[in-house]
């Protein structure tokens, strides 16, 4: 839409187009209602101003049918809008399985971004055109919010848990990134840029910069450094759950509950190991709270995700 109206906000993601249609539709509907009401008020004010020669016989002070009509009609309209918006919202929370993961750690007052291959950036996010990107985000301190107006996406970034946001960029260019949840002194300065590049350029860009090993490889190194492998590897004498392919697996807990292991579960297990103990295991795992950073945890998670992928690859005939 911003192609036709250049002054409007750019719509640079697959979600933005749908958003603008919904916005425009609602604008037309509410605009019509507003114009109608304003028009009626002005019309009545003029026609029935004191001293005018209008017919004032039998002025009504109620009309059940009218009340019913203007209750039901708006209600139906509202339900329609609700449904459309709820549907689009559900899409916003269903990232495609093949979305490219990018990891974001927010802190006062900057965005720390890391791509799966290890390439890091600060206050900038390079993404390829036309590919779904899923951001896995957490905060080191207070609540922030990752907001890219051109993509029409926003998600609070909360300390103590992971939240995620996905988009597929549909236009090349550079777009604003704002922090949208007040986070202290330099909240207004916690801005950045999202840079959408053609896929091949993105692939090239990814290889440049600091050539750290990929996040999963970093995670493997940390897995050994922090001693996780001491208990969780196959040859260990300590009875600890096997973590291969953990992500996405159903885990049965000691108190009878079961859950699907996701990023938040892994994070909690590292920091609050007593919280969700696996059935059949003693709660002897120590907590790593205070020792392991948010970036480290993300790397460990990626390593575990990798073990699942490797395992699946080996299983495939």
């Amino acid at each position, binding site marked *: 839409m911003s192609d036709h109206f250049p002054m409007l906000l750019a719509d640079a993601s697959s979600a933005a187009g749908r958003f603008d249609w919904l916005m425009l539709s609602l604008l037309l509907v509410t605009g019509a209602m507003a114009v109608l009401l304003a028009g009626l008020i002005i019309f009545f004010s003029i026609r029935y101003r004191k001293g005018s020669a209008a017919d004032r016989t039998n002025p009504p002070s109620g009309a059940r049918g009218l009340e019913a009509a203007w209750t039901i009609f708006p209600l139906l309209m509202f339900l329609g809008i609700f449904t459309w918006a709820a549907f689009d919202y559900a899409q916003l929370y269903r990232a495609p399985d093949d979305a490219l993961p990018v990891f974001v750690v927010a802190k006062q007052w900057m965005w720390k971004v890391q791509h799966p291959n290890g390439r890091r950036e600060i206050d900038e996010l390079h993404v390829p055109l036309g590919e779904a990107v899923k951001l896995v985000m957490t905060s080191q301190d207070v609540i922030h919010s990752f907001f890219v107006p051109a993509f029409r996406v926003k998600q609070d970034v909360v300390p103590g848990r992971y939240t995620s946001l996905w988009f597929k960029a549909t236009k090349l260019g550079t777009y604003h990134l704002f922090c949208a949840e007040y986070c202290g002194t330099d909240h207004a300065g916690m801005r950045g840029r999202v840079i959408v590049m053609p896929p091949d350029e993105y692939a090239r860009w990814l290889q440049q910069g600091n050539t750290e090993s990929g996040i999963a490889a970093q995670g493997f190194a940390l897995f050994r450094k922090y001693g996780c492998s001491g208990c969780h590897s196959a040859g260990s004498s300590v009875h600890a759950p096997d973590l291969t392919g953990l992500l996405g697996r159903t885990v049965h807990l000691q*108190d009878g509950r079961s859950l699907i292991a996701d990023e938040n579960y892994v994070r909690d297990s590292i920091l609050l190991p007593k919280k969700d103990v696996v059935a059949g295991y003693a*709660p002897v795992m120590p907590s790593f709270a205070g020792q392991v950073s948010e970036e480290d945890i993300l790397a460990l998670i990626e390593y575990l995700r990798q073990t699942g992928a490797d395992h699946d690859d080996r299983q495939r005939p």
Partner: protein
Amino acid sequence: MNTEAMQIAEQFDSAAQQREAATFGMWIFLATELMFFGPLFFGYLYGRTHFGEAFGAASRHTDIALGTINTTVLLTSSAAIASAAAARRLGATRLAMRLLFVTAALGTLFLVLKGIEYRHEWQEHLVPGLRFSFAPQYTDGAEIFFFLYFVLTGLHAVHLCAGIVLTLFFALHLRRENLLFANEEKIEIAALYWHFVDVVWIFLYPMLYLIERAGG
């Protein structure tokens, strides 16, 4: 039947209207108190759902003996103040006065026993924020439990203090034979407040003392 003249405040048209307004006012006030305690009850519900085992383990560390005695004390005090209101209604003002003093005394006994409990809990390092320590696998949940325990019982104790002051206030007025002031209507309303404090405790007692006690 109490046939004394009533003091009717000037905004009211009749004694009946005044009484209706005063009683209704106390009920509304109690509704606000319920909403004030509400978030804490909600927090307890949340904790019990998410830290079930830890809450159970923590609950076993409350002093069930003192808690049960206290429950009996408070229920008896409610009976006492209800009787005081009835006595006042029937014109037995000296009896009403004594019953009000008994109510206050029982309330004070409750506070003393609670204080002893608190002291024990402090000695056992069960006060969050003050060198709290608990079995490692339950620490987080237990700390939340005890946080709620202290805030809920502490808030309850503050309300009980207010009730004791109120009760003594009317008891002393009865002692000085200020019958017009310490009238039936006011004592009924004070009793209503006291019953509310009691009802809150009736919920707190099982929540804080009785879970996961069965079977030892």
